[in-house]
């Protein structure tokens, strides 16, 4: 009897490993191996030869160069991470807000939902980069201004005039800058919220209706219902969305473009690897801090 149970367990182990085997191979060959390679590259100078590449060990030179000599790296890194830190809470709150609205019954809900999913289709990297390339062509390669004008042009808002108007009332400049940035980014935020809205919507649908009924019977107001029922029950998904948003924004950010040009245009692979490691470390740090801060507040049902 005992022997049979052990074999059953062993069989479960074997089939389990068999099921995940394709992924394990892919993980080792493509992810782990190349991560190790990246770390090796970052300490070396890599020159392309006829038969592949040659490495020569340079120690911390690449990191030194990135931090101390490169004119752009530190600035671009802080700028990218800063943008991510500003956009993430806006995207999370916006998508939660919209998901709550879309979860209510109203006429034309299917149509509105269809429209809100459009950004997932439309805001593809392909189309964005096609339009950006086009704008650069029109403005003569001023990529930094291009991004700003792009979002303002499409959202059709003239924010600056409003900003000047508000500043007349003596509101602190930093606050205005933040608000103007948020409004100017409105299109970006909506564009990047598609998947998050879907995830929140799914979470909202999963909340049992009986909870709301009970709350209403007890005379809870809409405000109380939101903060005591809806918010705690979707809070696990806030973590999921947070991770997704940070990773998504990071993969679109300018620092990645910079790493790509460093590697493939300037052929400086070692430096690019060093930059990639540093920026990924920064992003992982941000992810770790954010998730651990929020995880404490998250309500788990079980």
């Amino acid at each position: 009897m005992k022997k049979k149970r052990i074999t059953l367990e062993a069989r479960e182990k074997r089939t389990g490993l068999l099921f995940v085997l394709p992924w394990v191979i892919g993980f080792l060959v493509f992810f782990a191996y190349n991560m190790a390679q990246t770390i090796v590259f970052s300490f070396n100078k890599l020159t392309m030869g006829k038969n592949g590449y040659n490495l020569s060990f340079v120690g911390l030179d690449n990191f030194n160069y990135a931090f101390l000599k490169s004119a752009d790296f530190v600035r671009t890194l802080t700028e990218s991470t800063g943008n991510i830190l500003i956009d993430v809470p806006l995207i999370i709150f916006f998508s939660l807000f919209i998901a709550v609205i879309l979860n209510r019954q109203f006429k034309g809900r299917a149509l509105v939902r269809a429209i809100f999913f459009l950004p997932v289709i439309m805001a593809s990297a392909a189309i964005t980069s096609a339009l950006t390339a086009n704008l650069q062509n029109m403005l003569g390669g001023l990529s930094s201004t291009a991004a700003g004008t792009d979002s303002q042009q499409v959202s059709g808002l003239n924010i600056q005039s409003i900003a000047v108007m508000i500043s007349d009332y003596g509101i602190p400049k930093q606050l205005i800058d933040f608000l103007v940035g948020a409004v100017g980014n409105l299109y970006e935020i909506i564009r990047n919220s598609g998947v998050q809205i879907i995830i929140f919507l799914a979470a909202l649908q999963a909340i049992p209706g009986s909870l709301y009924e009970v709350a209403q019977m007890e005379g809870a107001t809409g405000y109380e219902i939101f903060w005591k029922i809806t918010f705690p029950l979707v809070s696990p998904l806030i973590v999921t969305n947070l991770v997704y948003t940070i990773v998504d924004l990071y993969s679109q950010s300018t620092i990645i473009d910079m790493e790509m040009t460093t590697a493939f245009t300037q052929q400086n692979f070692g430096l690019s690897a060093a930059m990639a490691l540093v920026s990924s470390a920064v992003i992982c740090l941000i992810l770790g801090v954010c998730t651990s801060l929020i995880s404490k507040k998250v309500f788990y049902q079980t």
Partner: protein
Amino acid sequence: MPEAAKALCLKIDTEKKREKNLKLKRAVPKFFLNLFMAVILVGISYVILSPLIGIVSHSFMSINDYYNPLVYLIPEQGTLSNYRTAWQQIQYPNSLAYTLILSSVIMLIQTFICGFVGYGFARFRFPGRNLLFAMVIATIVVPVQTFMVPLYGQFRNFDIAGILHLLTGHGANLLNTPVPILLMSVFGSGLRSGLFIYIFRQFFKGLPKEIEWAAFIDGAGPFYTYFVVMLPNAGSAIITVLLFSFVWQYNDVFFASLFMDDSNLLSIQITTLTPKLAQTLQIRDPNQVMLIVHAGVVLTIIPLIIVYLLLQKHFMESVDRSGIVG
């Protein structure tokens, strides 16, 4: 008695009145709340749709229309020449067919493999499962861009345990073929495969174990159980992954530009349309280039919109029920 009945009637009457009052009292804020929401929804829908409307309208405009300040959205001298140029320059029928085929193949592979792996993580206990699943999360969190250089090198000089090096002296150059993307998908490391594995794992965890036990008792093996019993029950997760996988693959520029820079994938074609028009065709007016690029963008989006409209209903229903929710 009639007294009591009268009193009762009166009581009911006042109750009704009070209820009516209460309803009225609640109706006013409710009305404003609905109005507020309607305004927000319409406004955001406008923000989402307006660039699309602008692009569509530009794509039909002739350059004269564009410079004519009286023309707003609806072109006066509508023309299809933008579409004609874009159609030729991005080799639309070819690149569309190629992109659709590649995206569909990748979509099927990813759904199949990720479902398989996700089931393994959800149901079987084996040594190192938690560690391996943590690694799945790591592949979601660490962007591919971090190790793109060695990845590029790996496929530029591809080799399996040194066999090709022994035979020919150098590895195979797999760049500019779809092989790298296909290989990565087959081994569950493709475009956002980690996320799909996560979705499937959450979904299968949510299914009752009794289904499988019944199958096991009837003598079905684990693979038979998975394909015949579990997979048909995972419809909603499958649709979610199918759609996301297809859309993301169709739109992907990163892997495409890393591995298949010269191919006629639609995403590459549309990205390089501007320099092509400006340099090869020598169109000097950047606004003319813009009109043509916008026509190209419309051509690129249309297939996706059609797919989405066809799947929309299933998709929203399936998202509601799928395991995206942790």
